[in-house]
């Protein structure tokens, strides 16, 4: 590659660098701010002294781990964190299993799969039309899944979008590989497990990440399907939602004339909980990035 040292090229490089640095600041600053507030005293936050780094009550730089201590010694956040981890791992595994086993036959020739077109149309139909909240709730209820972990996992086990991504990737695997395996005596399951899946790590990582992030951020299904009797199953995002809503709820309660009913957490506690919630995804992304770039390009270029 020849380096272009012309003035216009250098200027362009500078513009690009400045733009990227600004973009990096825009992305990083909220995270740094959340971390700083979580490590600052509440008085410093209320006084508007926290801008970039953690500040103590006196206004000087300093770390206050009180919020993290409160979280760790409490029961709610650690328990919900654990539930989120379990849900995310289980959901990702189950969803990947269901998605790949459905995507694989749909990626093969119509001659090998009966009702191929019909099944494909039915699946794509669900991308545009859903049953709605109440019918889904009734199904979950009738299946006895209310107040269980499975109510959050099973109804969303297959995402049609992810299924299409996965099918597109499987289609790019040469059919000759399967034919060779057939000749060597392998059956469909063996081919799928020993040839197709090992060749699909990029797609698996990408779709797995989509599924993982979805479940990690999930609170709505917990709100719908879990009651107080299953509060130990509340995921972290649901707890965070409650904490974040405290201010608004306190204002509403006050407006309704209620007596000190809503307890509002300190800002540092709120931000510490938020930081804990984003930490796992921050840690996971770098390790999956190499697959991710390749995986999201699936189906974008043909030939």
């Amino acid at each position, binding site marked *: 590659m020849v380096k272009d040292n012309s003035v216009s090229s250098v200027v362009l490089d500078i513009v690009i660098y400045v733009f990227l640095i600004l973009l990096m600041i825009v992305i990083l600053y909220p995270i740094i701010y959340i971390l700083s507030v979580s490590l600052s005293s509440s008085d410093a936050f209320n006084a508007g002294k926290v801008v970039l780094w953690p500040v103590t*009550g*006196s206004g000087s730089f300093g770390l206050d781990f009180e919020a993290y201590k409160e979280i760790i010694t409490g029961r709610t956040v650690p328990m919900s964190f654990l539930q989120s981890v379990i849900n995310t791992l289980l959901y990702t595994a189950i969803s990947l299993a269901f998605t790949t086993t459905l995507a694989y036959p749909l990626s093969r020739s119509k001659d090998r799969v009966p009702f191929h077109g019909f099944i494909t149309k039915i699946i794509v139909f669900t991308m545009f039309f859903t049953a709605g909240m109440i019918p889904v709730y009734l199904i979950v209820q009738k299946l006895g899944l209310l107040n269980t972990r499975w109510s959050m996992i099973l109804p969303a086990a297959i995402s049609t979008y992810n299924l299409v991504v996965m099918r597109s990737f499987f289609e790019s695997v040469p059919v000759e590989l399967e034919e060779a395996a057939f000749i060597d005596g392998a059956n469909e399951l063996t081919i799928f497990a020993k040839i197709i899946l090992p060749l699909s790590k990029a797609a698996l990582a990408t779709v797995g990440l989509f599924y993982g992030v979805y479940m990690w951020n999930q609170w709505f299904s917990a*709100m719908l399907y879990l009651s*107080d009797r299953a509060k130990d199953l509340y995921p972290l995002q649901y707890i965070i939602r409650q904490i974040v809503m405290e*201010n608004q709820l*306190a*204002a509403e309660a006050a407006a309704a*004339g209620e007596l000190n*009913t809503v307890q509002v957490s300190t800002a540092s506690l709120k931000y510490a909980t938020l930081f804990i919630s984003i930490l796992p995804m921050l840690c996971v992304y770098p390790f999956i990035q190499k697959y991710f770039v390749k995986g999201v390009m699936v189906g974008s270029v043909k030939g």
Partner: protein
Amino acid sequence: MKFGVKKIVALAAASVLTVSCLTSCGEANRQSFEEDGQTYYSYWLNMYTQDSRGYAEGEDANFAKVIKNKFNVVLNYDRIPRGDWETKTNLSYAVGNEADITTGGKEPQYKKWATEGYLDPIPEEAYTGDDCILKDWKALWSEEDFQKVLSLAKSSDGQLYYLPTLRQEKAQMCWVYRKDVFDKLGIKEFPKTIDELYDVCVKIKAAYPDKVIISCNGMGTTSPGSAITGFCQAYWIPELIMQQHSFVDPVTGEYEPYALTSDRAREMYKTIKKFNDAGLIDKQLFSIDKDGFSSRLANDNCFIAYDYVYNIEDFTKKTKGTNADKDCEWAWSANMVTAYPEKGTIYKRDPLYSNWGPAFSDGIDEDMDRYNAILTMFNWFATEEGQLYNTYGVKADDPEEIKDGVAEDNYSYYMDEDGNPHFNPGWYDESNPKTDKKEDKLLTLEYGSMGSQFKKQQYMFDSIRGKKVEALFDAFSAQPNYYYFDQIPMRYDEDEEQEFTDLEVALNAKRDEYIQRFFSGDVDANNDANWNQYISDMNKVGLQDFINIQTTVYERTKAAVEQEEAALKAAEAAE
């Protein structure tokens, strides 16, 4: 072999689904049961929670023991986080999975569920006559006020579908201000007219040019209009206008079906713009939350607000921050501000009742013994004994049971020499929160109690805010030409209810959009074209239809209430 595996997998999947279905059908819904020769009644109760901690439940909890022994009642709770209560309760009614008793609703919701057939009415005989089941609940109000409560809370079919709770505060909202700053600038009293308020704000601004003068304690985050209710009242528009829309003028008796498109509303928007243009109002009035407002206080960035009278100590504390020696003092004012001094001044008189009492789901009246048992329990909550229990828990009979400052056997309170209750050490005292709520015992957590129902025990209420709100009410009452807007009964039938809801959503969205645009200066209420555009946009989303419904319902309800009152008087005369 290949097909064998497929068959096995299919069979296994089908079996799992079948077993799941069958097991889910086995949940018994026990409504009454016999134990030791007595009949006990069991109910599911839906209520909201404020946190996700564990609550004492089951037959061993003190609260459960008391109501089981006293009323043969056993409650099973469905505690829902407050923010999700509306969604989950609506869903439970829609799927037929509702609790027997719902608490915590708002009146429009209760009335909507009633018209949709989800609720059973409170039997009229339960609250009529001197010896009715709900006699203590009824006695929370004077007879005259109780009739007003009934006329307001009843649905369009003339039935009552929930038990309102007593609103103990008569007045609580007022203008609060930095008294130390007023004193320093020689401002002798809080302004009484909107022009005086402007002049005072300008004076403060001159002394503190970089500061915000009027801000808001996070109310605008619920609805933009909630941040300007102090100004609303200055222009004779009710404080609760964002929810109620219509009102009757207390002086002229005229009915106004939609206030925020009136000429007075226009004058109000002009004034708010004038204050904003002069830099006297917080630019973030509608978006600032409680944290943001705390930050304003800590930075001396607010000198006047329209807020709750009992918040001034907290404001002073937050303004001082870590500097206890800082010279600052928040005070409340008995002066409300008016734009029409010749006509009089408006203050907010709190409603006679709140609406988070219990409602009873459809079907509960199939077993009247069961229904009466739960009504009897709720009636007890309104008695002195019930209020004391719900607010303070269980008293130790013998002072010896308090050893080393710790109450034995979970006794939560004691009576002092004057006969006033006080929490024992180790219990969270709402009236004196020196201790940490998270570490102290809470009645709700230890006893599984439902918290205050209908009324907070008077001594506790007085200790928390009762004396402050009473002082404010007395101060308003002593002012000449001070008026308040009375509540007006509105009973919608099912079609009107639906149309009202649809129109209200659209109108509120347009109204809130324009409140913000008037404030920001994007549209100017001084400009006729802008104002006409606002009216035109409101008409496009159904303002005239809304006015028609409100007027029809108002006239019809007024006639119905007058009829009911006449019938009541006739019955009394006959007795």
